[in-house]
């Protein structure tokens, strides 16, 4: 039997297989490939960077919960000159498409970091981490506000010719509307989910455990919600989706792809089982072979009986609903 074709193109980025990593979950202080060659994956998504130095959140930053990780790292970051001097030369040497994740506290900061990253000429795409409170607009995350995310993505769109991926956090009420907003603003793909906000309180002290009080929840525990959200967004937009949230093995990869993801990211599992991605790649290949699937892209959206008979109502899909 012919070897299945694992390659895919997402947001114009050609990947030799649909597997990648969640921003911030792979890569050691600029060192990649500690456990296997980084070229094993279809694309590398790097840790989110900012336009300025940032120490990150106070410890403790991580706390184990059943089937998951509760954490609040706060996206620590060196300054731009350090990044250029230290990280860029390393990234240049990698033979894998690199998607650089970026964040800002304001629209201007987002645009600035997008522009700088673009100019480096080494990235295959840029991922906008929209999980930052928009302090000018009442502190709701950009990614939780259809209008703010529209404007932000639109300005980032104007600042770069690179494929632009908007990364959304889990949400229920506005998820599809935000997805449509970023699509309308020119995002080439949507990445979801970022880790949802969460809190653990120590019953002895009755105070939050994590230094930042509010943290995130990631890992296996969030998978059923993440799969649902990919499924919902797949029905709401036409741009491709990077799916993630609790992926641990090839079965999860298939689950996310069937829900509608064209590429799938390994996140928290990289901390626990660093060989999870290469193993999943092997197992996925075997699965495709055993099931007579010649092209991995056939898996995309397979859980939808009929993509056009959409469960979320038609009104929500009207272009006019997108804030402009």
């Amino acid at each position: 039997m012919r070897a299945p074709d694992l390659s895919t193109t997402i947001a114009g980025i050609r990947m030799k297989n649909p597997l990648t990593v969640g921003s911030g979950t792979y890569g050691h202080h600029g060192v990649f490939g500690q456990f296997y060659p980084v070229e094993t994956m279809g694309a590398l998504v790097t840790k989110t960077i900012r336009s300025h130095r940032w120490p990150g959140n106070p410890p403790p930053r991580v706390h184990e919960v059943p089937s998951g990780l509760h954490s609040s790292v706060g996206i620590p970051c060196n300054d731009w000159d350090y990044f250029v001097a230290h990280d860029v030369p390393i990234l240049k040497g990698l033979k894998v498409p690199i998607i650089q994740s970026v964040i800002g506290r304001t629209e201007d900061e987002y645009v600035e970091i997008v522009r700088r990253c673009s100019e480096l000429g080494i990235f295959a795409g840029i991922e906008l981490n929209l999980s930052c409170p928009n302090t000018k607009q009442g502190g709701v995350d950009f990614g939780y506000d259809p209008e703010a995310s529209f404007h932000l993505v639109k300005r980032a769109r104007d600042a770069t010719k690179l494929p632009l991926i908007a990364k959304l956090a889990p949400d229920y009420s506005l998820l599809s509307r935000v997805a449509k907003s970023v699509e309308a603003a020119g995002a080439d793909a949507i990445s979801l989910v970022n880790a949802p906000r969460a809190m653990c309180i120590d019953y002895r002290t009755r105070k939050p455990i994590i230094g930042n009080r509010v943290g995130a929840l990631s890992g296996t525990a969030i998978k059923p919600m993440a799969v649902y959200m990919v499924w919902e967004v797949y029905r709401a937009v036409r741009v491709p989706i990077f799916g993630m949230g609790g992926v641990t093995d090839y079965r999860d990869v298939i689950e996310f792809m069937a829900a509608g993801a064209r590429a799938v990211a390994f996140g928290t599992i990289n901390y626990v089982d660093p060989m999870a991605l290469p193993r999943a790649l092997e197992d996925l290949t075997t699965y495709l072979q055993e099931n007579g699937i010649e092209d991995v892209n056939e898996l995309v959206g397979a859980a939808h009986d009929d993509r056009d008979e959409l469960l979320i109502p038609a009104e929500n899909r009207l272009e006019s609903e997108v804030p402009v």
Partner: protein
Amino acid sequence: MEQVFASVVFNRHLTGDYWLLEAEAPALAASLLPGQFVNVRIEGSAAPYLRRPFSVYRVSRDRRRLQIAYKVMGEGTGLMTSSIRENGRCDLIGPLGHGFSLPANAKRIAVVGRGIGIAALPTLADEAASRGIEVHAFLSARTRPNLVALDIFAEYAFPVVTHTDEARANALVTDALAALAQKVRFDAFYVCGSNRLARAVHALAQKQNVPAEIAMEQHMACGFGDCHGCVIAVNLRPSRGEKAFKEVCHYGPVFQTWEVVDASA
């Protein structure tokens, strides 16, 4: 640093609340430096979710096997006692972090440990012994059976001062060290397992102007520098002032005492 599925030689009760795990892991044991640690995955169970970090307690003479002395604390270490079995396998990542450094011409050092902190010291004692350095150990624990590693120091006939809370609740084992240090010269101090002892050792080291190192602990997700989860606040200069967050698994677990003592205050 690599991931190894080590074959388990034994996993049995050691003393007090401690268990001792020995595994065949030449790839890790061969390159391990004193004070480095490994990150253990409890296999065959969905919980716990994360790995558990442990100092390497001992490396066999042929450097093929390593030991972990672990205290049974919660879910993870509890499951380790039952799920890691002789002739079974044990998923390890290591060696991790930066370990202890011995000054070039050191003749005599003092190691101070309390509780599970003691488990970080035998690899240092072994290394010191192999270089002909004399080690004085000052070990403290809640109860006598929890004073692990006494046998190891005895192997080399290194002098050991012990302290248990049962015996003298408020005294510090470093009192004995401070007294001795007035008479004999130590070329370096090492401490692990207690903030109080760390402060005492640091004060002594400053007074005597000798280097002092401390092995730190912090809750970890990965153990190998990828998650930025295990930071502590450290002083960037001995005179204090500027501080930064540093990952214990990557920049530590061993730090200079001046880096960490009072840094988070």
